[in-house]
């Protein structure tokens, strides 16, 4: 388990009705079950807004997409709001390629002006 923890970390913060899960490390089929558990636990608290932050992940593949889409479906069905952060690297590119970016609320949608 400790080895597993090294692969994926989930940090949770909440503020008012808003609950944020920041994922870091690597999200793949190995670490997905733990990520899913964290998301489900957060969902059980029925936060008005749930934020999944994937921007800090070193690696995420289509199972991360699945995680987000399932969370979106649950939010819609349970009268809650879901938002995500995707960063501006490979993760964002993947969501763009699949045509999903526009169907989500992406908090860091715009490029940071530097």
């Amino acid at each position, binding site marked *: 388990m400790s080895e597993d923890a090294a692969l994926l970390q989930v940090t949770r913060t909440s503020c*008012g*009705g808003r609950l944020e899960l920041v994922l870091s490390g690597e999200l793949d089929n190995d670490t997905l079950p733990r990520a899913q558990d964290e998301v489900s636990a957060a969902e059980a608290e029925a936060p*008005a*807004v749930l934020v999944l932050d994937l921007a800090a992940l070193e690696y995420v593949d289509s199972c991360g997409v699945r995680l987000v889409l399932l969370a*979106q*479906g649950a*939010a*819609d*069905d349970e*009268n*809650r*709001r879901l*938002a995500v952060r995707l960063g501006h690297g490979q993760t964002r590119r993947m969501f763009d390629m699949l045509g999903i970016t*526009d*169907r*989500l*609320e*992406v908090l860091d949608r715009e490029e940071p002006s530097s």
Partner: protein
Amino acid sequence: MRYRVLRVNVGADELLDVVPGVLAVTSGDDHALGALSPLGRQVLGAIHLDTPLREALPELADALDTAYRSGKASRVPHEAGHVIRCTPLGVGPGRISGLLLRVAPDDGDRSRARTAGFQQLTEQLSRAATPAEIGRLTTTTAAALIGADSCIAYRRPEGSDVMEALHHHGWPGDTHRLFARVPLQRGRPMSDAVLGRAPVWLEDAGQWHARYPEMAPLGVSEGHQATACLPLLVEDRDLGAVVFSFYQPRSFDTSEREFLMAAAALCAQALDRARLYTAELEARGAAERERDRMAFLAQASRLMEAPLSVEERLRQLGDLVVKGIADWSAVHLVRGTRVERVTVAHLDPAKIAFIEELERRYPPDPEAPGGAIEVARSGVPVVMEDVPDELLVASARDETHLELIRAIGLRSAIVVPLLVRGRSLGALTLVHAESGERFTEADLTFVGQLAATAAVAIDNAALYEQQRTVARTLQTALLPSALPDVPGVECAGRYRPPDPELTDVYVGGDLYDIHEDPERGRWALTVADVCGKGPQAAALTSLIRHTVQAEVRHGFGPADVVRRVNAAMLRQGGSRARFATMVHGALTVDPDGVTITLVNGGHPPGIVLRHAPPESDSGGADVEWLDVPGTLVGVYPDPELVEADVRLAPGDALLLYTDGVTEARGPEGFFGPDRLASLVASFADTSADTVADGVLDAIAGFQDGKLRDDVALLVIRAAP
């Protein structure tokens, strides 16, 4: 308030404290009174505990029994909008131990009212045909049914990510601009409802701020508290959305949600129906337009085949266009390095005059992009659904010019090149102005076809110009270059094509021929006139010439030769009836003169010019008509032909000709046979050449130098 399962080991008295409006608690199937609240004493009466209510309150007996047996609450009307509700109590399903009686607001009334409301809504929706009407009904009838204070109904155009408001109600006039067109974006309640395909319920301002803090100020503006955003879905199709807003907080419990979703579903189905209906109307309209367009194209095609000059045909095309499919039309043609406008049309001549005056004052810029000139050069069509004002501003030289251009009222334009075999010959411009209609990309096919029709016609005309020169050469080639030397006979043959200014390609159908048949010591002579012009006529003259030569070589007499020519023409067949008139003869020479055995197949009669004896007092010569009867050639299988012998003494001449001579028309009318006879008489005792040239000059002079029809002449003179 939601009711949780009532646990059985709560005492009846405790229930009296907990449940609002409670009247009494009973136990057993006789409904023995277990507890009575002060309100119960008031409403039901001072009944002793343990009394079976079946006896004390017989009017309630049925309701009590129903609830007890079925395990479902029953109700009995009570005063003014209230009911007495009998709710079963028990350890579990089927193990009812008693009943709870309480007073409650008349939900039944409400659900009856709702049912009636649904029926009314359904009825009204079924009569509505267009999405706009459905939108209106949604925001008025449906909203009233639900008890919403404001409502907006949206449609989602197919394939679009922008919602368009169909109708709104209850929102102040100026705010509705904010939500006339709403792009779908997650993180906003209506978008979330549409994209998530599930309603968004916001019960009060608190929930607004918690879930949509960014939008809450707008959401709770104008005194609104609760909002419900419902997608309008039919199967898996997104049709739109409806947003209901309430001035009061509203609990959207299960039955509330079901109710609103049912109303939304009704509106969605109606919208789906209306959309299909509108689509059907549009398709039918499109089919009709298509049919009209086919008819139009057919008309345009016919125009292009008319025997008129190119410019005239294009002018007529331009006129046809403004009668049916555009307000303005213009045609430009590429002429060498320049592009010239050949025609501009509008139904109102004053407008054309206006344009012409405008262009006199401000000559158009040939380099202007998107203009007809550029399209004519590039061959790339341009569609301007809405002519942008910037374009007008860009093409205006000054304020006045701009005002004048704007005054034309150009709304929408389409310019297509006139393409043929990959070359651009010019451009066809169609403009909608006062009609208010617009051209779209979809019109390109049709207008392109129209342009193609015109282009082919222009191209053909241009080809005809070239072909005429070829034709003249060809005609000359079809005639014998020089007549053979017939000993003791002067021969003169002449052919003239008609006026070179005529635009038709002229390879005529007249021929003359003399050739030798050495085997029989005779010569065959022929003059023929094939009906029609063009290559087919030329082919037929060729057929006649060669058939005659072949049959003469076979030794056939003149009548048989002509019969064989007739058969050959019939065999040739073809879709158009082709016939010819011909005169053919076999000429033999002897020391005393010339004998010609002649056959006439429907041809104008030949003239014999007799040498005038010097002492004759007629002054002129003796002119004889050779009236030999005979049928046209190439029509009947069995023509009637007669051989007649003509004897020419030395100095006598025979003139054979085609009807281009007698039917030549001048200011004085037809030339006619009489004039011809007099004319020929005046050439008595002259050479065959003189006669031939003389006749030709006279005809040309008669027609003011322009021959209408082609002319062939053959003069045979027995040497004096």
